[in-house]
């Protein structure tokens, strides 16, 4: 039996998502992305995304940090180290904090109708987290976070039993657990681990090395 202890002892990060914090995340994501480009385009970093272009829409809910981590322990690869797992959850939290409901999406090729993104899933996702907690208490008399991974997976499998085979875009996930899983399994890190090499999709890098097989991942990264 796998115990649900991994990740415990981490310094959890439970501050509520204030509007200022959301703006900070939006701007930092832009700056981080520019730094990833390397020296040639660092000139962009400082002015990557002026605040005036980030409507602060105000998400309705911060998602319970402990429960998200408990889901991550149960649903993300066991082979992830604690630090990797923490990184995966924090990345999801940052993504959620900067999510803008009903945002204008990229126009489809030749489409004359402007598409908009999903609405705020906060209330629904928070309710789902509370439900996981309720079920764990009722069925196993422990909190969801303290349940064993097998118990957690049993609960999760029931709660997401109507999901499709493919992972949706995280913002379109009907269940918060699927959103967290989709966010991770569509990530650069998951893709690299799957292939065992550093594909680093969507990362800007020189064309000089394009014809080489991406470098092999080493040790812990696998």
């Amino acid at each position, binding site marked *: 039996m796998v115990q649900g202890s991994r990740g415990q002892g981490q310094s959890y990060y439970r501050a509520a998502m204030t509007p200022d914090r959301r703006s900070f995340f*939006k701007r930092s994501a832009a700056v981080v992305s520019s730094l990833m*480009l390397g020296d040639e385009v660092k000139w962009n970093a400082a002015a990557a995304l002026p605040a005036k272009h980030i409507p602060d829409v105000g998400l309705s809910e911060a998602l319970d940090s402990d429960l998200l981590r408990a889901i991550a322990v149960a649903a993300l690869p066991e082979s992830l180290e604690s630090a990797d797992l923490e990184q995966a959850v924090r990345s999801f939290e940052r993504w959620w904090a900067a999510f803008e409901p009903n945002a*204008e999406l*990229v126009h489809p090729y030749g489409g004359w109708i402007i598409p908009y993104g999903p609405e705020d899933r906060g209330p629904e996702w928070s309710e789902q987290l509370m439900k996981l907690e309720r079920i764990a208490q009722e069925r196993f008399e422990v909190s969801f976070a303290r349940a064993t991974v097998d118990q957690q997976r049993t609960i999760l499998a029931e709660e997401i039993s109507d999901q499709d085979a493919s992972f949706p875009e995280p913002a379109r996930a009907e269940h918060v657990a699927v959103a967290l899983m989709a966010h991770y399994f569509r990530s650069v890190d998951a893709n690299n681990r799957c292939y065992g090499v550093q594909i680093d999709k969507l990362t800007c890098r020189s064309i000089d090395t394009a014809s080489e097989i991406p470098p092999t991942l080493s040790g812990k990264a696998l």
Partner: protein
Amino acid sequence: MTNRIETDICIIGSGITGILTAARISELTDAKIVMVEAGGRTTPVRERLGRRRRFIDYGENPWINDHIEDQTGEGLMYRSMVVGGCAMHWDSACPRFSPEDFRQQSLYGVGTDWPISYEELEPYYHEFEHRIGVAGEPGPPEYDPRSGPYPMPPLPLSYNLERLKEWGESSGIPFWTQPWAKATTTEYGRSVCRRCDTCHVCPTGAKYTPDVTLDELIKEGRVHLISETLIRKLELDVQSDRLAVARGVDRNAPDEPMEIRAGTFILAAGHAWSSHLLLLSQSARFPDGIANRSGMVGRYMTGHPYMAGFIDLPFKLYPGAFQTNSLLSRMHARPGPIDKYVRHDLRIWDSTVGREAHLRDADGKIQFGDGIMDDWRGRTERATARVRGYYDVIPDRDSRLTLDPHARNRFGDPLPRIDFKDAPESEDLRTHTHETMEGIFKQMARAGDGHLMSTNVRYTMEHPGGGCRMGEDPSTSVTDSYGRAHDHENLFVIGAPTMVSGGCANGTPTFCALSLRSAEEIAATLPSRS
């Protein structure tokens, strides 16, 4: 109070064709050029990096203010209405048309020959490629006739594309690198492509976008741009059929009409809005609209559908690094003598289709953790190739843009509606075309010991054009081969609207080559540059 402007040349539309035309005319003459654009400025270069991040994370539109809410229509038309036009977010593929595209009737007995040959247009393709900076490798001369090399070497093939090229050519089809307007050297002042794989919004400026050229023209005083101004009507001179005035409105000051008087008018508003403006411009002498004595404005709307397939192959690839580059073959666009008219191009990309992580295993059971990873790894031992071909269709006379009486913008102008229609000779061949292309996909799959997983057809027209078809006969066309309206000697329609047919390659290089040729013709009517 009416805002009045007088100029030598008025260009309506600030997309890539209008901008390149302005650049060329300003090299040849001292003519005063005013460019009018209904849209405003979109995301500046310094913000594209941050917008790219949100495009990746949330699918958000990285191009701010890139459309006008009530300036749209029904049918295939792009919503982008901005300074720089649709090429602000193009992927920048730059294949040329083939000589056969211009001679369908002579060679195959279908459609209509263009009033211009590939050979006449070739120098302008060359000029276009050198003017904006295209990176490419010439294909075999029999499939890719050209007078000179591209100005920059091609984007290098990724490991994946090298493997796929080997596989693709094992079926007897030659493939080469798609030409792109992305820098592989620094000679154009752009940074070298860093294969970020989000060409829709290039974060480094390696991809050519027309706003760069326009800003230079403005800075040098060669073009005066009036943005956020919608031209609503063209009017004739009182005593002749020459155009005299473009009337519009500043969208920020709708109570102040705009009146632009010019010696020459250039309509560069793309496949939808060019015909639309001509149809809106009705008068006693031209009750069906400007340039429409023949009734041909809005007819023969064209473009091309595509058929795509996914092929499972027995080797490992590493998709995700440089997936925007692709392989191209023009072999089937130059088929030689054929019994039935089927012409198409062929492209190959590496793909993640069938190679993504799944929530459920093959038996439909929900999986977690390393179970997902193991299942995923199992499916990545093989590769997926995406193959696709644009195929040529002959437009019907009733493939048409009309004014929609049921939809109007805030100024009360009826909006456009486009209903594409294939001519009978293409409609009759649709099934045969799809079977032929599927046969080629299967042949390719067999050559690599793989199998065709699926196919799909997109029948909405890509790279649309038409509506102001060029031709020698004024009773069956709107303009001559230079885009000069048969009915008005000082009105030129440039780019996509003048296309006779959609060919089987991306349209922009052809739109631009035609426009550069028009620019020389227009400049010849004006005093040379001092």
